[in-house]
């Protein structure tokens, strides 16, 4: 089978950080293999400490992996010479959660959006100025915003300016890290609409990192679920949201409060006990076992294999094929919803 070269793929990716003075290692990302197709949105969900932001940065080439490969258009991004990489990385951009942190308070919005074009230094100044106004228009900011400063803008408007800046060099991939997390719901809806529209207009692919399941379900084609440095489940967004295979995914979905009347909510919910363990010394075998209600001895001894279930739906759990759920309810409780 000869698959087309993916836009972006990572293979057995590890990003480890040294921690403290006792020679400890934080295994932020610990063996992840993923790929991204042109025009696709890959959602990455998981709790704080699951490694999703680190994975996103490594995918965009902002962080060097300690092991494994990040390939951009089939080329090893880590092996490029700095000059080569600087040119190459234009196609891979990032947008962050805090719209303030990414804009220089002393630069007008126009200058900020034009900055990437000025650095690359193509075309004449007048052409770059025109391109900057086009970009502002594309993200729904009028030309009058070019002369304003970040403090004059609302959070949603600042995020639009950041998006304009990120698409200035016509990237193929945008890695979006919690880009709507700081926004109120009605503004969040506006910005999500903008992402969907830009994707259709520009053919962008997104890696969309979010802790909000509703956001991932809305924007993603496929969703990867991360827990403690590993992807535990990967599949089409609809399958992940409606037919999850991994107990962690099931617990995440069950714990998200849904704003519907009581009669329409499920009768019980899974409340996990305990918290995510330290990525310095993750549990042996399956990393979720210390909070999993299905956990058995085997889960401590052997890491579950990454297997395919149905079309393009992958999962790593020893118990996926076991028809009857075990009754070991030591680590989670099913409680009646109120």
């Amino acid at each position: 089978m000869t698959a087309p070269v993916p836009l972006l793929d990572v293979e057995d990716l590890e990003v480890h950080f040294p921690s403290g003075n006792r020679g400890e290692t934080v295994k932020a990302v610990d063996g992840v293999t993923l790929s991204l197709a042109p025009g696709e949105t890959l959602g990455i969900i998981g709790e704080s400490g699951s490694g999703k932001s680190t994975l996103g940065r490594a995918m965009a080439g902002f962080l060097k992996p300690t092991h494994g490969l990040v390939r951009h258009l089939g080329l090893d991004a880590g092996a490029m010479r700095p000059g080569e990489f600087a040119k190459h990385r234009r196609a891979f951009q990032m947008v962050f959660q805090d719209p303030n942190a990414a804009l220089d308070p002393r630069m007008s919005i126009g200058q900020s959006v034009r900055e990437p074009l000025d650095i690359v230094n193509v075309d004449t100044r007048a052409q770059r100025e025109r391109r900057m106004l086009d970009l502002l228009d594309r993200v729904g900011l009028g030309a009058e915003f070019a002369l304003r400063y970040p403090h004059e803008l609302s959070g949603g408007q600042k995020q639009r300016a950041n998006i304009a800046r990120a698409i200035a060099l016509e990237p193929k991939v945008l890695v979006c890290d919690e880009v709507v997390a700081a926004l109120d719901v009605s503004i969040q809806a506006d910005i999500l609409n903008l992402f969907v529209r830009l994707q259709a207009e520009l053919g962008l692919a997104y890696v969309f990192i979010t802790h909000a399941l509703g956001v991932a379900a809305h924007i993603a084609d496929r969703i990867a679920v991360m827990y403690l440095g590993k992807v535990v489940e990967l599949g089409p967004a609809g399958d992940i949201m409606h037919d999850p295979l991994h107990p962690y995914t099931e617990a995440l979905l069950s714990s998200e409060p849904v704003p519907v009347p009581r009669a329409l909510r499920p009768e019980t919910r899974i409340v996990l006990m305990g918290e995510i363990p330290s990525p310095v010394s993750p549990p042996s075998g399956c990393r979720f076992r210390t909070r999993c209600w299905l956990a058995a001895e085997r889960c401590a001894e052997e890491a579950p294999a990454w297997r395919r279930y149905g079309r393009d739906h992958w999962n790593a759990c020893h118990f996926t094929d076991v028809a009857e759920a075990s009754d070991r309810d030591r680590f989670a409780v099913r409680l009646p919803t109120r």
Partner: protein
Amino acid sequence: MLDVSELNVFFKQPGGGEARVISDLSLGIARGERVGLVGESGCGKTVTGLALLSLLPAETARVTGRIAFEGTDLTLLSERRMRDVRGRSIAMIFQEPMSALDPVFTVGGQIAETIRTHFGVGRKEARERALAALADVGIPLPSRRYDEYPHQLSGGMRQRIMIAIALSCEPALLIADEPTTALDVTIQAQIIELLLSLTAKRGTALLFITHDLGVVAEACTRVITMYAGEVVEDAAVDDVLAHPRHPYTSGLLRSLPRLSLPKTPLPAIPGRLPALAELGSGCRFAPRCTHAVTACAQAQPLRGDESHRVRCCRYAELSLAGAVS
């Protein structure tokens, strides 16, 4: 139990003059009731919570109106008498427990201090009660955790400590301001479960301030929606979720990504929250409202009956979309 009427909060402006950030707010909470207070950033929900406990700085904020708690008007109390109410009768927890806990004292010591202040018991008994409070909020190994400092605990554990402190004096009302917003969903589920079981067991009423309608659906029986410093809707949670009567509440629900088909345009609310200086005398939501008519230029009182109050002159004729279609 709590009956707030015509509450107004004015903030002094740097150039002189005042801005009215809360306008004629009225709300009631019955014993043991769980009420959600929702709205977007800047709508005045946190200021309302702080005003109820007179925690707003007197130099910059002026509060008028009546806050009747078990028959006593709290706005007339001296600061000394108010200190007895705070914690003992009405307690409050916040989004970021780290800013409410003192980093240089042990968490057990901070619970014990609260108990000694309000009950005047000895050190030994305060310690016993604090240990029991730690166990009640689901802290494993209370006798070991007692001597730990806030930085040694996770965000979820710190919020449990805050709940232990808040409930240690068995208040009649707990005001919880975004207590789960900074937490992951699995931890949020634990904390909501804990708040519900403890308040139910002790008959504590809950005022749950949040921007998250999902949290309100799970934690509350009644919900009050605020917009630009005013209450715009006040009714039973299930009623509001299924049939909101104020266009703003409906707009909030409809902008949630969960309720639309993937990648289809989300119905966002046009425009943005008006600045306080821009407020006219008519309906404050009218400039953003797709249902606005000429009558909306008039000042809008709360209409409807006790079971469903709404600040919209078209509430009876409009059929607005809710969380269920």
